[in-house]
Every structure is written in C-alpha cells, then in structure tokens.
C-alpha cells in the first residue's frame, strides 16, 4: 500500500473511461440554524472497472455522497457528472432513466421485496432494463442457483444480500453502489458477500463503490477513499488488491 501524491483528486490508476467527475460538491440538509453540511466540497474522479472502498465514521456523509452519485437526490451546489451527463441539473425523469439504465444499488438491509421470490426480485428489475442478464444467470453468479424460488423470509441475511447483489448487477449497470453491504452480516457471511462483489467487478468491469466503516475492507480495493466531516480526507491506491477471502476482522 502506498500513499498517493499530495493532491487527493489526482488518480494514478487510469484503468478506463472516467465515469464520475465530482468537483466542490456540497449538500446541505435543513434550513437556518439546523442546517447540516452533509457534503462540504467533495472533489473526486471515478473510473470504469475500479473497485472503490469508501471509509469513514458514521455521520461523515458517505451515504449522502452515494445518494448523489446514484441520482437519488440533487446536490446543493458543485459539479457532478456521470460521463457526459450533468446530474446536478437533471430533471427527475432524467434521473429516473439514469438510475434505471446505469446504476445498481445494494443497501445494508438488503431491501428485497418480501412478496417476491429471489428469482422474481431480480426479474422485477431486468424486466425494465434494456440489455439485462438472465435472472437465473445473475443469481448463479452469486452462487444462489439453488435458492431461486425462495422468498426473502426463507433466506439467511447473507443470502438475501447476495440476491440484492444479483438484482443490482442483472441489468449490467455501469456503476454498482453498495452502502454498507456487510453491515448487518457476521464475518463469514460478510466475506461471501464481498467475494460476490469482487467477482462481479472483475468479470463485468463494473465501477463498484463500497461504503463501509470497517477499515479491513480497504485491502480489497483498487482505491480507498477516506471520508470525514463531508470531505475527502485522503485517497490511497493499492498496488495489489487482496482477495476478499483473505480479509479478517
């Protein structure tokens, strides 16, 4: 692991096309006395195929950043570009299209639709995608080929999170945004989930951003972004990505 040069924005691992271009990004919540600076001038470039780990204490603005990247919300000020698209000025309809076509989300609490089976949860999304994978194929990719027709309530937490991954990747997104995907899981299952994410990133070349407050996960990243008080503190580049199976915490 080596520290990057003094400018944290300057990246050294130009693996591919630039996906996100972020400058002076600010997001305020609330008004008047109660205003919260969730993002306070973020500068960042993210590239195709990268696996990014976003580290930072609770309340530092990680989820907020992810929400802006994923087009779930509009920033207060600053620049935010997805390829050629300006997300700061996009209409709601445009953001909806953007999310539908380009983004896959994974959340801490899986957020599967409880009334649909594993296969149906994935198919629900592929149904509205342009060039999706077969839902079964996506589930096999996360080693859930044997659990296709189980309802979420019949699956363990780790299995549910892998269904969520299959759901996120099945539409072949350009970006995979994962908010504390292992936060609700124990070590062993956490690692299985991370292996799945790693595999997707490697095999499909999807830019993956994984939020965690668990520093051990930094080893599996191409780059590690440390976040605090709504700002990027540092960006580190790993020369070698450690396989997820070797992580310990």
């Amino acid at each position: 692991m080596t520290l990057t040069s003094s400018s944290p924005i300057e990246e050294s691992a130009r693996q591919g096309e630039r996906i996100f271009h972020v400058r002076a990004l600010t997001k305020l919540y609330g008004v008047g006395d109660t205003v919260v600076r969730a993002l306070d001038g973020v500068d960042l470039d993210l590239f195709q195929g990268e696996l990014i780990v976003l580290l930072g204490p609770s309340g530092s603005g990680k989820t907020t950043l992810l929400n802006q990247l994923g087009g779930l919300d509009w920033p207060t000020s600053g620049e935010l570009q997805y390829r050629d698209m300006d997300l700061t000025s996009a209409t709601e309809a445009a953001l909806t299209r953007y999310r539908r076509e380009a983004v896959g989300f994974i959340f801490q609490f899986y957020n599967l639709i409880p009334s649909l089976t594993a296969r149906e949860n994935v198919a629900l999304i592929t149904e509205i995608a342009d060039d999706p994978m077969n839902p079964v194929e996506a589930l096999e990719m996360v080693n859930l080929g044997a659990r296709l027709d189980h309802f979420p309530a019949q699956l363990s937490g780790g299995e549910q999170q892998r269904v969520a991954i299959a759901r996120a990747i099945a539409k072949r997104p350009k970006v995979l945004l994962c908010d504390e995907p292992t936060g609700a899981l124990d070590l062993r299952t956490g690692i299985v989930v991370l292996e799945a994410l790693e595999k997707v990133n490697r095999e499909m070349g999807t830019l993956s951003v994984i939020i965690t407050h668990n520093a051990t996960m930094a080893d599996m990243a191409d780059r590690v972004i440390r976040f605090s008080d709504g700002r990027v503190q540092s960006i580190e580049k790993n020369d070698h990505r450690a396989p997820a199976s070797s992580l310990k915490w």
Partner: protein
Amino acid sequence: MLSYLDRKVVRDLSRMKGQAIAVSLVMACGLAMLTMSRSLIFSLERTRAEYYQENRFAHIFAHLKRAPNDVRERVAKIPGIAGVQTSIKVQVTLDMPGLDEPASGMVLSLPDRGEQELNRLFLREGRWLEQGSRGEVLVGEAFAKANSLRPGDSLAMLLNGRRQSFNIAGIVLSPEYIFESRPGAALPDNKSYGIFWMPYEEVAKAFDLYGGFNYLTAMLAPEGKEKAVISEIDQVLQQYGGLGAFGRGDHPSHIRVSDEIRVLQTLSIGFPLVFLSVAAFMTNAVLSRLLTLQREQIAILKAFGFSNREIVLHFLKFAFAMVIAGVSVGTVGGALLGNRLVRMYEMFFRFPELHFRFDKSALLWALLVSTGAAMIGVFSSVRRAAALPPAEAMRPEPPANYKPALIERSGIAHLFSHSFRIAVRNLERRPMQAVFTVAGLALATAILIIPSTFRDSVKQILGVQWDIVNRDDMTVGMMEPASIKVHDNLKHLPGVVQVEPFRTAAVRIRFGNRSRQLGIRGLPRNRIHTRVVDGSLHEIVLPPEGLVVSDKLAEILGAKVGDEVIVEVLQGKRMTRTVRLIALAEDLAGIGAYMDMQGLNRFLEEGDIINGASFTIDTAHRSQFLRALKDIPTISWVAIKETLRDNFRKTTAASINLLQSIYMIFASIVAFGVVYNNARISLAERSRELATLRVVGFSQREVGAVLVTELVILAGMALPLGLLMGTGFATAIIKMVNTETVRLPLVLTSSNYAIATLTVTIASVLSAANVLRSLKNIDLVSALKAPE
C-alpha cells in the same frame, strides 16, 4: 403473463386479503343496491314502455254520460290526436258464490268487429271472444288469480240489475290496468273487485247505451299537446255529460307504476352513496397502511429506476383490484336481489311479462362510481408514495411522536387504566384513522335506521287510517246516488251496530293554473266512522261551508288555508264555484277532499242524497250481514277493513320486510368490515408495540384490552352519531319518496334505534373477536427484530 410488479400486487393482496375482502364487500353492498335499483327501474320502465307501445296505451282518457257513436269522428278530427277509441265502461255487481261479501267490478266493451284501436288486451290464457258471441267474458288476471278462475269457468254478474251467467273465454291483461284496483281505493282488493271485457253489443244493450259510448280514450300524435287536446275534447264532450278528460298523469294505474319507479330512483342514489363513502374511507385506510408498511419497498423501486407513474399505477392496482372484486360481487348480488324483488312486483303489477332486465349502464355506473370512490380513497396516500424521495425512504422512520393525551393534560389520567391511556394516546396520534372508523361505524348504524323507519311509518299510517280515521268495519258504495231514506233500510240489516252515510262527487279542483280530478267526500255532521284529522291527529270540524283537502293535494295545487279554489263539478248540473279552503287534513290516500255532507248536497244543488255508507258490524252476525248486502242490487262495492289489512300484510308489508332484511345484512357487513379493518390495521401497525407490552409482562388479555378499549371508545362515539345521521337520512328519504299515492309520515321509534345499535354492536364484537384471536400469533421475537 403478469409482470413481476403485478405479481407483487397479487401476493401483497393475498396477504392482506381479509382487509381487501372487507373493503370489496362494503363496496359490493353499495353496488348491489345500485345495480338492483337501476335494473328494477330499467325493468319497470322498459317493460311498461314496450307494453304501452305494443298495446297502444292511450294518452288521454275521458268519462261521459253518453254520446252517440258519431261523436267519435269529431274527436278524431281534433288536431294532435292520432287515434280514438270509444267504448262503454260500466260498474257491475258480481255474484261470487265462494265469497262472503259482495264483489263488484268494471266491465269494458270490446268492438263487435275488429281489434281495439287503443288499450289492446294481452291474452294470458284461454281464447279471445268469438265474433257475435253472447254470454262470454274476458277476465282481468288479478281478479282471476285471486279467485282461482280459469277459462271455461262461469261467472255470474248483475248487468243493470239483471243477473246473468257468463262463460270465461280468456284471462287477459290491459295496459290500463297494470295496477288493478277499485278507483279511489288506496289498497287493492283483487278478490272482490275485477275488470271484465265483453262485446259492445252485449254491454250496450244491457245498459241501454246501444249506439253510443260513455268512455273515450285518445292517443296523441307526436306533435300533439296534451293540455290543448284535453280542453278540445272537453269542449266536444261537454254536451254529452263529459266528466273532464285527463292525461296519463292522472291515470290511477299509470301513477302507481310511476310512483314505484320514483321510490326506486331515490334508493338508487341515496344508498349506494352511503355505502360507497364508507368503502372510500376504508380503501384509504387500507392503502395508507400499505404505503406506510412499504415505504422502503417504494424507495427501492424508485432507486432502481421505476418512475413515479409506474409506482402510482402499482398502488392504484390494489385499489382497482378491490374495485373489480366489489363490482363483480356487487353486480351479481344486485342481479340476484333484483330477480327476487321483481317477483315481488308481480304481486302488485300485471305485465304480460315482467322480466328482470339487467341495466348494463348500471354496470358502467358501478364501475365508474366505485372507481371514483376508490380514487378519492387512495388519492392522498398514493400521492404520498410518489412524493416520497427515494433517499429519504431508506432512512429509518423516526419513532412515533406520542404526546400526552388530552385526558392526561386534563389531569384525570390517574382515573384510567393503562390500556385506556395507551388506547387514547393511539387514537389521538392517528386522528384520521379514528375518524374513518367512527364515520364507517356511524354510517353502518345510519343505514339500519332507514328501513325500520319505513316499516314504522307504514305501521303508523295504517294505524291512523284504520284506527283513527276510519273506525268502521266495512264501507259500502252504491251504484247510483240514492235518497237519504236508504239509510233507514241499511240500518236494519242484520248485525248492524252503526251505519253512517256519505256522499261523493266527481270534481276538478283548480287553483291558479294547477288542477286535479278527484272525488269530494261529503260526511255527515255527527259521525263516528270517518274522521278528518289534521297533522297532529286532532279532529277537524267540517262547517256547513268550505272545503278541507289533504296536505298533499294542497301542495300539488300550491294552495294554502284561506285560499279560494275553483271546484268544477263533473256530474249532475256541472256547476263551477269557488270554495274557501278551511283546513288541511292528513290522508293516507295522498290526495283527498272533504266537505260537510249537507253542505256538499247544497253545493251540488241536489236534495238529501247519499251514495255510500260505512258500518260497524257485530262480528257474530258478520256473514249474515254480508249475505244480506249481496241481495241488495244497488250496492256496487264493499271494502272490508280486515281483508284490506290482510292483503296489505301479504303484499306491502312482506316486501318492506324483505327490503329490511336486505338492509340489515348490508349494514352488518359494513359494521363488520369497518371494525375488522380498524382492528387489523391497529394490530399490524403496532405489532411491535404490542409485542413489547407482552415482553415486559403484560398478559395477552391486557394487550387485547388495549385494542378493545380503542374500539369501544370509537364505537361509543360512532353510535350516537350514526343514530343522528340515520335520522337525517330517513327524513330525507321519506321526503323524497312521498308521492301522490304514497304518503309516509316520519316515525322514529326507540325500538328502531335499539335494533340499529344492537346490530352494529354485535357485528363489531364478532369482528373484533375475530381479530383478537390472531393476537395469540404475535411472534414476540420477530416482532422485536429490526425492520426488514
């Protein structure tokens, strides 16, 4: 194949099927009422219209003394007339060996050759009269059925005093007698009054009217104006003793059917409205809860790029599924009920064929109205779903914001149990939910008030009519007016305790440009039988001069006490005079007018004349009395109070009871559904809270008590409100239903209120018990786990 989002609709619905079914059923109740009443209106209107059309029912009717047949041509030339039919219409006395009392009827002539031009008959059974035949008769169906007469049977009649036996050729129906009853009688007695048809020659000769006619009907051309044509006809017939022509609006049978249609129209709007409002409330409650539960799911769908439109549509499908279920059950139920009720109409109305006809537009209405109700119900909640920002929804919902409840702020909290306090706090926290439940329960209570009001009102009116107004046992009408001396003869009939003569006269009463034809009834000075009473049932004294009319007639004429109305006598010397209106009377028959008997005779410039009498009979001599009556040829008809009462019980009362049970079932469904829904939602929304209570040591009973207390509080607010609303509905509906032939007073009894309260309470208790059973199944561990 269903899309995956639609599968979610199906699965989610099946998980909340209890509530969905409750909503659909309430909706179905309203829609059943809607389709039933719309279809009945459709059936009656269409059947009547087709019957009128096919059998050429006339538009204008006129009675007269006698005119030579060639007058027909003069009438036919009046502009605006498309067809004229002249005939003879006479009263006859029947000799029915099987019947205690004298029976009477109306005989109408049929052309000797060819078909009737207007008011053609429909042959139900047997055959038409043979040309040139003698001693044959066609019999109206209502009378034939009531007396079990078949073609081939014989029937004895007194034609102009001569007894003659007739062979029944056929049983028929006439568009003029869809409602077959003695003119002026409020209730039909088909056993002792019938309609008959005979060849012209036979009737005419028997009544010395050969070569002339005494009844004329006319059909209007499309451009014909009723009013103008009537006055032209009156002019022509005046010199022949015309009694004043009238239109369908004054035709007794036509009015009865129209009135029934009007009653149905009231039902077809009022009731569905009430039910569908409840359904809208319930839809809103169910969907709001669904949206609250699915907050995260909505966020996920949005995060993955489902548009607001798709999500709104998704939730509308839930409402739509309930609508479809409600419409299906409602229209099928409405059709079944309608089929059942149409058979009830067969007791009152005689059509060649009264089929239940499903009004297809009712289906459309049902769909529209219930979709509308559902949309109103879901609009706010679904908008909430669309407005939910996806990023926001992923954040855990803040804890419910409980405030000290009102009772706690008022400082009397220590008087109440824990369950009571928790219940009150929850109600205060979710006021809308509480309002919906109270509204639903109140409406269920209100619905129950209405049919009982009808029943009590009819009971009261009959009580007034039969115990207060008419205190006789029987009323007898005479063929021709006779001298008051007849009175003495009547007094000496066997079994007579009391006899009281009366005099009626056919008149047209006019006020301003409104008028009505009816009979004025002249009553003797000192009378016991027939009383004329005002709205508070106090007797009105009839002075020698002046006229008393029923409330309804005054309303129709637009006249009030003190006004001078014009009375045009349609018989005898046919004078026209003004008379002062001295009081208004309460009258079951709807329109009626009364004068002092001597005053009326003076007014008519006739001597002391009567044309009927009422009797109090010693029951031991009842049959002797009736037999004696049968031997008096001048007696035309007898109305026996007991028989009318009996008929009434079998027909009108039976149909009111049927309707009442339908309402009872519907209201129970509403009460059950509303309580079920409320308890389910409470249970689901607060499973964590209730589980926590269990975990910290509350017993299942105590936890149940929280929910029950809530329901008891809600019911305690809903019931009085419902009784109040029901009173309002009943008042409005009785007002709307009141027509010329139906005149119902508003009667609200404590037993009515008690039944409503009890029914709703029982339905609520059963429903709550049903939900409470599932308290056992609260899984303490999983209810306390983090939300999925």
